[in-house]
């Protein structure tokens, strides 16, 4: 009774305030308010508050570029710019023009909001000082160029000069800060952080509906609201922290670490399906970071931006007790900045449009290649643990968990199509040993010849076979590398320490990597025809401070790319960053969610939309799932293919090994479950194999509909109740596929 009353009250409130107060819909898009059933178009109706978009361009701005779609205006004194989208007449502001009466901005923040560029600079003692263009009276040399402007800015107090170039292109605006033009004339001061157009597209509180997008996990939205649950801003380094600076990844077995930002894209939507932009960091992402401020933290503005790290302070311990000094890094990070702001309008002005725009960007740059599916059957990742070792008395004994022939039997036995098989722990000694420099299997598992036969059988059936390798990792306390010569070093002169699959490992330096990886991969590709499933290298990038091996994070990325471009075989990756997409034939451990920051309001399949139709993606292994049915629904909803981790032997055998993170894996236990999930998922996802995602909508509470380019629509009902709309009925906790007009 009480429930019904509330529902009624809510609807009533909705009817009264629906048109006026947008912020009513602070709920997740993925999780529409109860109201949605009665007013389904409430999100798509144009918002009144957007009337401001037609405002005049102030006199202080002059036109510096124009093409068929956009006009670019610039301000000579603050370097702020405005972009008029001719398709809608909407004006994008890079900065705040005038501080409003109710704006909670102090002097520093006002200057920050009004200036195109702000910098943090550091003195020799590593104390931080911020300077913005509008409060530090810099010398500005403003020069209009073809379709844009170029300005050299000299911040006088620290004597730091930078060059900013803003140009208009067919998709939007490109902002560049070349490294060669940066001058740090006073040795006393170093450039720390550079904030690039931090107030681009900023909005006040809940004055207009919309959201910010951050590439956390599968994708996260932060809706514009007046208040936020957040206590401080979102801060995230692209590709994770630089291990070269922090030396050791923090380790806490109780913590499930937050996702790394794997693609350098942020965005914002003003209104729902009205106006949106994404900012793609084309250059400098290795040293870039995202700061997102929901309204209510310090200021009343919603804004997010890219900042770039040129110099950092670090703590150099001088003894083991922990005493030491804070100093600056010896050399400024060398990298160019280039950010492309791409503008979307109308129906494209939502996160699906943003993802598609980024996809288009990647396709245009040759990063993504369309795949043409051979059949309408989905893939399934089956990862097998080969061997692992256990300590007995003074020796280690290797435990064969799945031999090559057993793997063949299992794959032959399972009724699944297109299996993507990964063999983990194939090397002599098993999973906890260093992979060899030349292809060699553990004796107990089988021979290379057997492996070659298996690869042929699987490939013939439409599947693929890869050997698992973490090429950067040098497993601690293992033989097979030299701690003196082969390892990368942190700025504090320690070996880098990280954790993967329950093992502690150091990281190889680039020289060793470029020597080892081609040798092994060449062997694998030519001798067996198998591919490589690469962990680590797709998502981990670190700088190296070892003498004579010094390596910048950005250069490391280029070297990795070169390394992979040179190898001929099939490579697939675990959660790769964007720069590995060209070499990725399959994406493993696709996030099904985000990191759950309390101020994010929606989980959206941004990454999935970007990759759909180009790279097949597989979820985390389902045997570790605690809610199998719900996880399967997530797979269908996001178009993710299933994964399982298997062994032939019972799992208890590896209980006392470093692979005990695999707490359930026996084929005898999981075989039937695998066939069932595959059959169920294949019926739903098979028809959309290799198709792009073109639209996504929420039909009701916990019901979402994803439309693919071939006109197939998949409707997933996460709620317990049946859902029906017209001829469509989806039972609780189920999904259906139907044909809609494309």
């Amino acid at each position, binding site marked *: 009774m009480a429930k019904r009353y509330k529902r009624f009250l809510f609807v009533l409130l909705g009817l009264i305030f629906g048109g006026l107060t947008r912020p009513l819909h602070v709920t997740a898009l993925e999780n529409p308010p109860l109201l949605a059933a009665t007013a389904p178009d409430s999100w798509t109706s144009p918002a009144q508050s957007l009337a401001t978009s037609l405002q005049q361009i102030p006199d202080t701005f002059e036109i510096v570029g124009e093409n068929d779609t956009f006009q670019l205006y610039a301000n000579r004194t603050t370097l702020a710019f405005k972009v008029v989208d001719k398709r809608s007449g909407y004006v994008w502001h890079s900065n705040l023009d005038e501080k409003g009466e109710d704006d909670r901005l102090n002097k520093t923040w006002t200057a920050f909001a009004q200036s195109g560029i702000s910098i943090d600079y550091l003195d020799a003692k590593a104390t931080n000082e911020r300077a913005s263009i509008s409060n530090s009276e810099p010398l500005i040399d403003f020069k209009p160029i073809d379709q844009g402007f170029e300005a050299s800015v000299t911040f006088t107090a620290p004597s730091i000069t930078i060059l900013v170039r803003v140009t208009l292109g067919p998709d939007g605006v490109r902002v560049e800060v070349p490294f060669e033009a940066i001058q740090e004339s006073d040795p006393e001061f170093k450039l720390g952080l550079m904030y690039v157009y931090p107030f681009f597209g900023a909005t006040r509180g809940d004055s207009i509906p919309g959201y910010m997008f951050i590439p956390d996990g599968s994708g996260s939205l932060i809706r514009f609201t007046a208040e936020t649950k957040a206590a401080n801003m979102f801060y995230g380094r692209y590709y994770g922290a630089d291990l070269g600076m922090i030396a050791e990844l923090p380790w806490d077995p109780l913590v499930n670490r937050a996702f790394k930002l794997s693609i350098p894209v942020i965005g914002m939507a003003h209104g729902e399906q009205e106006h949106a932009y994404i900012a793609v960091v084309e250059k400098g992402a290795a040293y870039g970071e995202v700061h997102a401020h929901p309204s209510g933290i310090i200021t009343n503005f919603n804004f997010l931006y890219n900042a770039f790290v040129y110099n950092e302070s670090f703590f150099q311990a*001088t003894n*083991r007790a922990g005493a030491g000094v804070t100093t600056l890094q010896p050399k400024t990070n060398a990298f160019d900045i280039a950010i492309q702001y791409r503008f979307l309008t109308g129906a494209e002005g939502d996160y699906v449009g943003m993802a598609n725009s980024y996809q288009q960007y990647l396709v245009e740059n040759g990063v993504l290649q369309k795949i043409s599916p051979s059949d309408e059957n989905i893939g399934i990742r089956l990862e097998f643990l080969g061997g692992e070792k256990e300590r*007995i008395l003074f020796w280690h004994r290797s435990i064969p968990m799945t031999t090559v022939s057993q793997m063949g039997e299992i794959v032959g036995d399972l009724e699944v199509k297109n299996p993507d098989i990964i063999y983990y722990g194939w090397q002599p000694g098993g999973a906890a040993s260093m992979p060899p420099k030349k292809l060699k299997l553990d004796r107990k598992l089988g021979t290379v010849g057997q492996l070659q036969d298996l690869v042929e059988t699987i490939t013939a059936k439409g599947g693929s076979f890869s050997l698992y390798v973490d090429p950067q990792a040098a497993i601690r306390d293992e033989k097979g590398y030299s701690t003196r010569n082969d390892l990368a070093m942190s700025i504090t002169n320690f070996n880098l320490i990280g954790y993967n699959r329950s093992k502690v490992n150091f990281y190889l330096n680039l020289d060793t990597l470029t020597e080892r990886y081609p040798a092994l991969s060449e062997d694998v590709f030519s001798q067996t025809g198998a591919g490589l499933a690469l962990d680590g290298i797709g998502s981990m990038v670190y700088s190296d401070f070892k003498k004579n091996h010094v390596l910048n994070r950005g250069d490391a990325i280029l070297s990795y790319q070169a390394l992979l471009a040179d190898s001929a075989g099939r490579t697939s990756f675990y959660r790769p960053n964007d720069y590995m997409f060209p070499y990725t034939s399959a994406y493993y451990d696709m996030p099904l969610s985000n990191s*759950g920051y309390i101020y994010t309001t929606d989980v959206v399949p941004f990454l999935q939309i970007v990759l759909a139709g180009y790279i097949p993606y597989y979820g985390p292994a389902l045997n570790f799932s*605690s809610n199998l049915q719900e996880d399967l629904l997530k797979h269908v909803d996001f178009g993710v293919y299933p994964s399982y981790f298997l062994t032939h032997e019972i799992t208890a055998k590896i209980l006392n090994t470093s692979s005990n993170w695999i707490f359930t894996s026996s084929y005898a236990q999981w075989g039937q479950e695998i066939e069932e999930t595959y059959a169920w998922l294949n019926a739903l996802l098979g028809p959309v194999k290799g198709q792009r995602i073109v639209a996504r909508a929420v039909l009701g509470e916990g019901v*979402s509909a994803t439309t693919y380019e071939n006109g197939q629509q998949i409707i*997933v009902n996460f709620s*317990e109740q049946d859902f029906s709309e017209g001829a469509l009925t989806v039972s609780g906790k189920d999904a259906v596929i139907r044909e809609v007009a494309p």
Partner: protein
Amino acid sequence: MKRIIQFIFIALLLGLTVRPTRADAPYTTWAWGPGGWLIMTQDAYTPLVEMDLPISEAEDMFVTSDGTIYIADTGNARIAKFVDFEEVASYGEDVLTGPTGVFVDDEGIMYIADAKSDTIVILGPDGNLINQFGRPTEPLFGKNREFLPRKIAVDARENLYIVSEGSVNGLVQMNTKGNFIGYFGANSATMSLKMILQRMFLTEEQLDQFVKNEAASPSNLTIDSQALIFTITGGGAYGESIRRFTISGKNIFPETIDSSTFRDIHVSDNGLVVAVDADGVIFEYDLTGTLLFAFGAIDTGEQRLGTLRNPTAIARFGENIYVLDKEKNAVVVYETTAFAKLVHDGIRLYMEGYYAEAKPYFEEVLNFNGSFIMSYQAIADAYFKAGDYPNALTAYRYAEDRRGFSQAYWELRNLVLQRYLTNALLLIFSLTIVQGSVTRLDRRYKWFDPLRAWWRGLQRFKLVDDFVFMFRFIKYPADSFYYIKKDLRGSMRFALLIYVWVIAVRVLTLYITGFSFNPFTSPVYIPVENEIVTTIALIFLWNAANYLVSTISDGEGRVRDVIIGSAYSLFPYALFALPIALISNVLTLNEIFIYTFSLQLMWLWVGIMLIIMVKEVHNYSFSETVRNVLLTLFTAALFVLTGYILYVLFTQLFDFVSAIFQELRLRG
């Protein structure tokens, strides 16, 4: 505005909607695994929502059986009542000053511990003041005892159990009139070796400067459906934070994996115990103290859903866990996953004694996680109850339950004995007869003389002779040491062989001792290197110390004598340790006496042999011998101490030098 958001969240909570995509849990989940280790497992709870409430620094929360939440809103000095996370009433604003504990009975009467006024306040369901009282006046309460009520629980007979801060006598038990009934469930003070030493050597004045060694006072409590009180005590011994008291005040909660910083505990009607600690980790137990799950993480600024900043209270309602966070001014809700539901259903049946019915649930759990030890226990019990002892034996072994294993083994052995005992006795009897007649016949016909000749021939070899010499010590120990001293028998070579054999026996016994008696539940946990190194160290220390002490106290023994003598002294161990370990395989815990007694006998024998050795080899009187042995032990201890000091000094030196180099490299 806020209400609207709340409506939606309420709808979520009531199961009207399910969020299609839930964020990944910010924590990993751990369960009780083999060897007493925690193992990672599937998530048992996923964070559902964080509900902001209009409260300030709230210290306690009570959830009634219909889901109504009462919060001791400490900062606002009131009790706030929430239905579906919506505030419906506020009580006691005129009486309360800083409530930190609240308990609500079935009639809705609120019992409140008010920390600022140090009183107990009882409010009616409408908020009308029923009673308010402070420190009991009864002399029994203690003359100098303070009354600082912080938390409260009430049983069905209206007995109030009050946590009084710093109370060494345990909980304060009172009635609703404010009369003192007695103390309940005191913790015991623990005495460490350091404290004992302090007491021995320090003066009264010095001792007064230390905090008095008194029993830690419980910091929070709860009451279960059987009216048994649970308390938690911070900073106590590992594994003993949680106590569950019978009516007579006896603790029946076993030692278990726990936290020393527990903040609150809650027991649900279906027997699931949850507790939260200061690090935001939530522990779930069954009523017998088995840890089911541990999960949770502290919010270090990342602000992820499901992390906690300063948890103060916890409660289970239905399939959800509510945690009150004082710093967030919010209640964080966690939802049971399908996996944890399976475990809970199994445990409910198991606790009610339906072993056979619970078995399929636990077999399913093992499909999810083969290392979930709790499952083997339940399955083993089911097998045992059904009389399937061989399977029970295997399952108990997996469950690492020595008692259960021993019982199942007793049953199995019983069966074997019943079947074969008569035959075995007959066999032994006939063997005795055969042996008797063979001996007699041998005496007459000298059948075995060639064998004896061969044996005597063998004794020409020194090592064989040394070996035979060992058995002489059984009958004539003192005499035999004399032979060693006079270089007549025994050799360094054989002494070293004995030492090697002793080390091997030491390691082997660990491997072959029966499961019921073995300190290690699985051979893989045996720290072989440690065992070997300690044994060698002990042998070395004894020999070195004894020789050095003896040379300065008129001992006649040479190094050689001491080494050989000590080796031969160890023969009881060398001969009998293995057989005892082997026999332990056919014993059950019922016959533990046989096992421990024979072990003690063996060690006693070794000790006596060593003393005789010292006496004979060095030619001491009895009093000299005792003094020498004691001095030897003292010297050995000094060796260890010196070694430790040297180690510390060298590490310091190393640190110092490496720091200099670091500095040079940095600044130079």
